[in-house]
């Protein structure tokens, strides 16, 4: 690895100060499972690595009637082991639990997955479907960005020089709501998603009709994709195969995948349809419980 300096500020203000002074040369370190490897392989470089793990705000998480807040450095094992989060946000935990394997889960954070901004990131389609927002701290104050607007290109996001992702906020889910995330991978675990789909739906009192839906797809575009047309195809419609097919068609139409070593564009478009159907069906099942 090329040499860099290391700092571990104990307050957010200290961290922001260091980030500003580094003048674009700073990278943030939380779990490190992406950044350390990228530094080693020369895909990223920095003059200063700022370890944020001593800052209170990024290590906190809470789940209550106001929703879910996850500090950007919270390791995923804490989220997937939390009973309250598992029962209130199973569709999110589906995605979060897929990040890496046991060893990665001991260090990696959802915030890091978001900031790494891979088009194939597993947590991001689920975050988008759940209407999550990113809370960003910077020299000019705090701002919030919707999850679907966070990534702008493969590996790139809206964080500006001197900014740090503080936390991710997810609004409470409606009582007639259900959600699911699933992905296609060649093996059984680890791997990078060939296609990933996150679906969040709300049913009416009878459970027979959709009130609304949010569908997001990963690994089929330069960034994880929010597909509003798929949700619109569900809104106000009866829960049946025909309605769900329309949502799948919308998701497939929005997908703009490339062909690479993990799959061809044609296979990815096909998978988008299949996984969207499965995600919506599972979300409906959960909503009806």
């Amino acid at each position, binding site marked *: *690895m*090329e*040499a860099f300096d290391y700092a571990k500020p104990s307050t957010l203000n200290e961290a922001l100060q260091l980030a500003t002074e580094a003048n674009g040369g700073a990278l943030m370190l939380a779990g490190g*499972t992406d950044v*350390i490897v990228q530094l080693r392989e020369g895909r990223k470089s920095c003059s200063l690595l700022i*370890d944020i793990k001593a800052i209170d705000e990024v290590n906190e998480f809470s789940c209550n009637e106001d929703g879910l807040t996850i500090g950007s450095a919270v390791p995923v094992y804490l989220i997937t082991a939390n009973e309250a989060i598992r029962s209130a946000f199973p569709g999110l935990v589906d995605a979060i639990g897929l990040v890496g*394997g046991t*060893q*990665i889960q*001991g260090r990696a954070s959802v915030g890091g997955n978001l900031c790494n901004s891979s088009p194939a990131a597993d947590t991001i389609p689920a975050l988008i479907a759940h209407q999550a927002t990113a809370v960003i701290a910077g020299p000019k104050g705090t701002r919030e960005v919707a999850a679907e607007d966070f990534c702008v290109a493969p590996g790139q996001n809206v964080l500006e020089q001197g900014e740090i992702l503080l936390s991710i906020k997810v609004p409470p889910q409606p009582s007639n709501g259900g959600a699911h995330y699933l992905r296609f991978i060649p093996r059984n675990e680890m791997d990078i998603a060939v296609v990933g789909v996150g679906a969040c739906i709300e049913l009416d009192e009878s459970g027979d009709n959709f009130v609304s839906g949010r569908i997001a797809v990963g690994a089929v575009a330069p960034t994880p994709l929010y597909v509003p047309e798929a949700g619109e195809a569900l809104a106000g419609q009866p829960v049946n195969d025909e309605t769900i097919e329309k949502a799948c068609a919308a998701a497939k139409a929005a997908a703009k995948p490339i062909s690479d070593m993990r799959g061809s564009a044609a296979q990815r478009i096909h998978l988008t349809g299949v996984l969207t159907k499965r995600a919506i069906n599972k979300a409906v099942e959960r909503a009806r419980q």
Partner: protein
Amino acid sequence: MSKKIHVQTTINGEEIDFLCEPRNSLLEVLRDNLKLTGSKEGCNNGNCGACNVIMDGRLVNACCVLGVEAEGADITTIEGIAEPDCLHPVQQCFLEDAALQCGVCTPGFIVSAKALLDSNPDPSEYDIRYWFAGNLCRCTGYDKIVRAVQHAAERKRETADV
């Protein structure tokens, strides 16, 4: 080259300190500075698990942790798995059940298996195989490893009941 940082940590129950650059991974420090060469470099990118250690109670890839991050931590490496007078049940079963061939993945698997059994004393085969998602073996085909872990779990439960 940046200034070296003085790190104080606990490894296998012993208070240890070392100097390292920020860019040195924990794996590099263990192997090159501290001569604890039991942890292996298989991939250096968090996929294979040959570098597994337990850090503050969590199973981690030492290649994905910086040496400087070990400050104040409590670390167990493969060198710290055996008791002073006998092998850990996982180690004993790996030997009895021939769960290794070249042995490069083995330190990682043993540390990983110990972490599994510490958190789940009665894992199903499914639990074991999914726990080992981040531990790769090119020689054995995993079957004997899984059986060795099942035997070790049994043996641990037997001695726990005694």
